[in-house]
Each structure stands twice: as structure tokens, then as C-alpha cells.
């Protein structure tokens, strides 16, 4: 009974958080509803990040590229063709004339995100550690550069406007729920379990015949698909998009959310995305001035970034597994025994960095490993 209960909790926890945000958001003012939708969409992006980063243990700065591609594809093809032809005369012909529905655009964005990430992954997934981090950052820069300056495929440096606003509270909640279900289903596949096993000791995994490359590529592709999907939700939430909105700022914010929540669990990703999303919304309100009773407080512009950044740094240093300890929802209470799992490491080899140890059979976050010094 227990394992099934655990499985139910693992999915129900994140989903109920979605419901809470959606219901609470709906009860608020129009402006706050917009914030709540934004929280749901941002959390969807964080879930997409988690699918790759959390399961593979490889940090990627590049997932927002797939969000960008999804957002621009969905936005462009749903915007009115007439304005497209006047404001973007340089577009490829099929891009200028094709018109799809909003639902179709969500599917298309997911597909494009998956294809793009699959192709990038064919090259990138051969790298690990620092090289992987830098290479994924390079993908972000390349995507940004191409989207900003190649005016045959999009609006270039201008803002893409007049995108139908269809991401309502319901759509946002359902979209976020779909991403959660996909992430949940994926993490119970054999491929994902092998990937997680390889995370602690890639060399040993390879020795056992596990193709780290292949399983990473699967995770990267699913993550890219979800990111593209989230990008479509994003553009239909905003009604317009420019390349600066899907670049380093968003990369930073979503990574911070994943880190603070706990990169090693779906629950951590959702809680981090929602929790910091709410904090973020509150802070951006405060940057425009917010009333505490009779006192009007205005935070300086940029304060939310400072707070997000400080939170991210502090969590990574003090509790690298995030506030959830990278455990799934209620996992601590529902697991039979506080089992021990750990990875040994031979002395002498790399004394500067010992193996990091998961302490309860849950999967360790890609956390810094430390020894005394």
C-alpha cells in the first residue's frame, strides 16, 4: 500500500499546488489574476528545467532557448497575417501566410522545442560538468542572436505584438498540470531511473553498460518539448514578446527557483517555481509601490533580482538540495524506513571532492560535494 500512496502523493502534491494558485488567483483582482497566471506559466518552465537538470544532474543554462523558440513560433503563427505582412515584410513566405489556432500553436511549440533540443542534445549531451554548462550557455546566446537579427524567421529586434491572449487561469493551470504529469510519468520510466543512477557516478554507470548519452538525450528532448510548450503558454499570456524576455533574465529567474525549491525532485521544482513566483510577483508589485495600511512602500527597481539572486546563492551554499531537500511531496513520511544510500569513494583519488551522498534513498540533487578543508 505504502509505495502506491507515495506515488499518489508524488503527483498529487504538485498538482494540488497548481489548483491552490489557480483558485486563489481567481479570487483576486484582475491585476493579481495576471500575476497568478504568470506564476503558473513560470512554474511550467521550471518543471521543464527540472526534467533535464534534476534527473541528469547536469546544469543547463540553455533551456530558455527552447522556451524562446516555442514562444516565437506560437506567437508568430497565431498573430494576424495581415499585420505580419506589413510589419515583417522580410519573413519567409510560409511564415507570413500560415495561420494556426492557439491550440495548434501549443502543440507546434512543444514539437519544435523537442526537435531543437534533440538536435542540440546530439552534440551537447556528450559533454559533462563545466563544459556542458558553458556549451548550454552558448546555445542560449546563439538562439538569442539568431532570433534577434534574422528577420526572415520572426520579428527580429522588434517586439512581436498582437498575439491572441488565450492563456487564461484555466489554460495556465491545465498547461502547468500537463507539464507536471509528463515530468511525473517520465521520472518513472526505466530510462529516467538509469539516468538518475548514472548521476552519482557516470563512470561506473558507463562501466555497467548504461549509455549516459542516450538517457541524457531523452531527458533533454522531453525537457525541450516542455520548454517549448511553456513558451507558447508564455506568449499567449503576454500577447507580445521580444527576444530580451526569453534570455538571460528568465534563465536566471527560473534557475533560481529550481535551486531554491530543490533541483532533485518534481515537488521541489513546482514548489520553488510557485513559491518564488509568488514572491517575485509581490516584489514586482512593490517595485511599483504597494500600500501597507497607510504606508506606501516602493522598492527600488531591481530589488527583486537582488533578493532572488541572494536566495539562490545562499541556498546553494547552505542547503544545496533546496528547501524540499530534493524529496518528493510527503516522501519523508511515506517512506518505510529512513534507508541509507550512498556512494563510496576511494581515498587518494580526488580528495578535494568526495562523493555527495543522498541520505534517504531519494535522489541526490546535483549538489556540490564537499570534504573538510
Amino acid at each position, binding site marked *: 500500500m505504502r509505495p502506491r500512496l507515495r506515488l499518489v502523493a508524488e503527483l498529487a502534491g504538485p498538482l494540488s499546488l497548481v489548483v491552490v494558485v489557480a483558485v486563489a488567483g481567481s479570487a483576486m483582482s484582475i491585476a493579481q489574476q495576471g500575476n497568478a497566471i504568470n506564476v503558473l506559466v513560470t512554474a511550467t518552465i521550471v518543471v521543464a528545467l527540472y526534467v533535464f537538470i534534476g534527473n541528469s544532474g547536469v546544469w543547463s543554462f540553455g533551456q530558455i532557448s527552447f522556451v524562446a523558440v516555442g514562444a516565437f513560433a506560437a506567437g508568430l503563427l497565431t498573430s494576424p497575417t495581415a499585420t505580419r505582412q506589413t510589419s515583417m515584410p522580410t519573413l519567409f513566405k510560409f511564415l507570413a501566410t500560415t495561420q494556426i489556432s492557439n491550440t495548434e500553436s501549443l502543440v507546434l511549440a512543444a514539437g519544435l522545442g523537442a526537435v531543437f533540443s534533440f538536435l542540440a542534445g546530439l552534440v551537447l549531451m556528450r559533454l559533462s560538468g*563545466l*563544459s556542458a554548462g558553458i556549451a548550454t550557455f552558448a*546555445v542560449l546566446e*546563439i538562439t538569442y542572436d539568431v532570433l534577434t537579427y534574422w528577420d526572415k524567421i520572426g520579428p527580429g529586434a522588434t517586439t512581436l505584438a498582437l498575439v491572441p491572449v488565450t492563456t487564461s487561469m484555466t489554460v495556465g493551470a491545465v498547461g502547468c498540470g500537463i507539464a507536471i504529469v509528463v515530468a511525473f510519468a517520465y521520472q518513472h520510466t526505466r530510462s529516467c531511473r538509469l539516468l538518475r543512477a548514472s548521476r552519482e557516478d557516470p563512470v561506473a554507470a558507463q562501466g555497467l553498460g548504461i549509455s549516459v548519452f542516450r538517457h541524457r538525450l531523452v531527458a533533454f528532448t522531453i525537457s525541450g518539448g516542455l520548454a517549448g510548450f511553456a513558451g507558447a503558454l508564455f506568449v499567449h499570456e503576454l500577447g507580445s514578446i521580444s527576444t530580451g524576455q526569453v534570455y538571460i533574465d528568465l534563465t536566471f529567474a527560473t534557475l533560481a527557483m529550481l535551486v531554491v525549491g530543490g533541483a532533485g525532485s518534481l515537488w521541489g521544482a513546482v514548489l520553488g517555481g510557485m513559491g518564488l513566483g509568488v514572491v517575485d510577483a509581490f516584489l514586482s508589485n512593490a517595485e511599483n509601490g504597494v500600500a501597507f495600511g497607510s504606508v506606501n512602500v516602493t522598492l527600488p527597481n531591481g530589488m527583486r*533580482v537582488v533578493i*532572488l539572486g541572494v536566495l539562490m546563492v545562499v541556498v546553494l*551554499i547552505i542547503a544545496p538540495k533546496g528547501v524540499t531537500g530534493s524529496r518528493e511531496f510527503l516522501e519523508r513520511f511515506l517512506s518505510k524506513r529512513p534507508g541509507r544510500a550512498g556512494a563510496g569513494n576511494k581515498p587518494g583519488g580526488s580528495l578535494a571532492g568526495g562523493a555527495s551522498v543522498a541520505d534517504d534513498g531519494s535522489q541526490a540533487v546535483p549538489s556540490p560535494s564537499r570534504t573538510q578543508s
Partner: protein
Amino acid sequence: MSWVSDLVNAISLGVVYGLVAVSVGLVFGVLRQVNLAQGEVIALGAYSLWMTRGLPVAASIAICCVVCVAMSLAIQVAIFRPLRGASALTTLIVTFGLSYALEAVWLIAFGPNGEPVSMLSSLNSVVLGGSIALRWITLVEIGASGLFFTGLVLILYRSKIGMMMRATAEDFQTARLVGVRIDRVVTWAFVFGGLSAALVAVLVTVQSPLVTPSFGFNLIVIGLVGVVLGGIDRLGRATAGGFVVGFVNSLLGAVVPEQQLVFLPMLTFLFVIVILVLRPAGLFTPRGSIVERV
């Protein structure tokens, strides 16, 4: 004859990125960790130049050095000491977060529009007129960086602390076993990193005086690209990588019309990926040599 000035300008930008690469490479050498926040050290140095604009130039530069070294050391104590032994990627993520937070701090403190540092603007005057347009600052850049690099090499190869740094860079654990006081070595790496950041701040602000919040981040990203291309685990190669990136960028900027330059970042970063996949140890590391995977 304009190719002469193009060439000299390219060299001067090359040495600036060489300096950025040094400040990353020094820390990576001893700790095998990446300090992206070094860019914000440069930024604070540049802002300190603006804040001390009323003072004599020498005092202003001295304060800039002190500020940069102090901030560099503060980062070492607050971030790198608790993360001792963490992977390079973890430190990349942490210092990415830190850089971003600091950038927002500059935004709050100094505003989004940037502050002009007009210090030493006389150095922008022309050395040689006519077909060879050369500015003094270019020569100063090359001279000052040359001095810095020479000094650093002398320290690394002729002094006791330099020997300890080289030993630590080669084998952290064994260095400790023979009694190298690691904390001291790490501190010195951050001191030198701070000094090279200060030099970058001075040189760059003279050439392009507007200091904006993203001043440092832009420099460090390109610097890091250079470090990766050159080979991150050897200081000399990393520095050479920084130089090449600056040099090529400057030369392309002079030769290629601006409209076609917009895709230069794409080409640069594509090149980064190719190098990471095909030559993970960097361009300047001979094939077949044993390389520590990072």
C-alpha cells in the same frame, strides 16, 4: 596603412581580454572552480573610478585597485570558502546568481543609464595622425598589460608564493601534504585576480567611458569564452585564449561591415561548442596530452 592601426587596436583589445582571462584562470588554477562574479569586481572597480572622479588620477586608480582586491577577497570568503571542494559547475551557477544580484545592486545604486568616467580622457588623443590613426590609450593598454603579465610571470616562476601556486594548480592534495598553506595560496590568487580586474576597469573605462550595470557581465562572458577556447586548466593557455578572442573580435569589427557583424556572437558561440566537443582541453593544448576533465 589603416591595417596598422587595426592591428594595434586588435592587440589592445586582445590584451584586455587576456587580463580578464587571467583573473578567471588564476582562481580556476588553484581551486578548479569558476568565478563568474569576477566581472562584477571589474564593474565595481569602474564605478569606483566614477565615484572618485574628483580626486587626482593616481589616487583614483589606487582606490580602484584597493576596491577590486577587497571585493575579490570578499567573494572568496563569502562564496568560495564555503564551497571548497564543490564542482566547477556548481560554482559557475552560484557565481552566475551572484553576478546577477550584483548587477541589480549596481542598477539600484547607480541607475540604468550609466555613468561616464572621463578620467584620463586625454589618453584618447591621437598619437599619429593621418592614415595611421592611433590613440595613446591603445599603447598604454598594451604597455600596462605587458607589465602586468611580466610581473605575474616573475611572481609565478621566481617567488615562493608563485611556486606554491603552481604546485597547488598542479596537484591540490599533494601540495597540502608537503605543507603548502592552501588558504594563503587561494587568497593570493584572489588578490592577483582583483588586481587584474582593476587594471581592466581602468583600461576599459578610458577607452569607452560609459559604465552601465551590465559592464562587467559582458566582459566576463567574452573572457570566459576565451578561457574555454584557450584551455581553462593552464593559465598561459587561458590567457592566450582571452587574447585571441579579443583580437579576432576587434579585427572582424574593423574589416566586416556592421550589418553583417550581428551574427558574430552566433559564430563565436558555435565555435565554443565545437571546441568543447572536439578539443575539450582547449585550442592550445597539444593533442594527446593528459588533461583533467572539468
